[in-house]
């Protein structure tokens, strides 16, 4: 069950998390609770997998390069193909989606060459073609995700 404090921590600190020596104490002061309460609430949110981390979201393609990749894989092969793909350290998201292109993953590598090599390797290992969809422009200003936690 989410407490008021949990909700505040989830919604108010997706951006502008304090960059100060004592960020949790600063948050505690802003919310009128103790630092220990803030620390244990973040601990709980982290243990319950409600937050993945407190940290950076790196601008795409600012370090190395990345691309979205799509594949059309018949249902009977999807599970093992997905497993092969997830095993690559270069892969960070890998989702099944409802479409004829049903497997979608994001590749991150230092260089374009390495990205191409991983794609070629995946195609050889799985026997399915990959559609490479690099980002051309990013229109989104990342302000975090506005959670409606009241219903």
């Amino acid at each position, binding site marked *: 069950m989410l407490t008021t404090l949990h909700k505040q921590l989830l919604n108010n600190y997706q951006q502008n998390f304090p960059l100060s*020596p004592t960020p949790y104490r600063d948050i505690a002061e802003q919310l009128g609770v103790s630092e220990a309460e803030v620390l244990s609430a973040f601990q709980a949110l982290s243990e319950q997998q409600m937050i993945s981390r407190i940290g950076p979201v790196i601008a795409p393609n600012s370090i*190395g390069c990345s691309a*979205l990749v799509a594949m059309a894989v018949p249902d009977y092969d999807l599970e093992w193909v997905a497993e092969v793909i997830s095993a690559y350290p270069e892969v960070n998201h890998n989702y099944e989606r*409802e479409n004829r292109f049903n497997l*979608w993953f994001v590749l*991150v590598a230092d260089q374009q060459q390495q990205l191409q090599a991983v794609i070629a390797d995946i195609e050889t290992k799985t026997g399915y073609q990959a559609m490479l969809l690099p980002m051309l422009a990013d229109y989104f200003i990342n302000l975090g995700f506005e959670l409606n936690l009241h219903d």
Partner: protein
Amino acid sequence: MIEAIDFQLIAAVQAGLPIAARPYAVIADKLALSEQEVIERLRLLKAQGLIKRWGVVVKHRQLGYQANAMIVMNIADDSVAAVGRKISAHNCVNLCYQRPRQGETWPYNLYCMIHGKSREMVMQQWESLRQSCGLVDVAFEVLFSRRCFKQRGALYRQARQSQREAMHG
């Protein structure tokens, strides 16, 4: 210019800031920097835009946002930037990227993401987005996610590499 120490710093924080009284001091100790240097460098990386956002990264699925749709559209090249910015201004939208069309196989060039508590809510939001952004005549497909095989923040090898180098002196 990103300095080597910044890669090490990103490597040290990309899995998450420690939940401890002096978290930046914990990071500083690993990198032989001062706490203040860590804070200053993170501030700078954020101001430069390399760190797009610094804070709590939530897990939508765990928080009741089970429905996640990637919507792909075919927008005329000369208006894709304007449409992209318009779409991004809506609260329900999480990501909005332009990507290359793949001929007739995949004629879409604009991608956005909507997270919602149900399919119905996502479809409602998409419908109102279509109306307000002038997209009623635009070809699109809605791709709801089914299974999540892997999800984690991007781990940059260069950053990992630097971390190893840092650890090995």
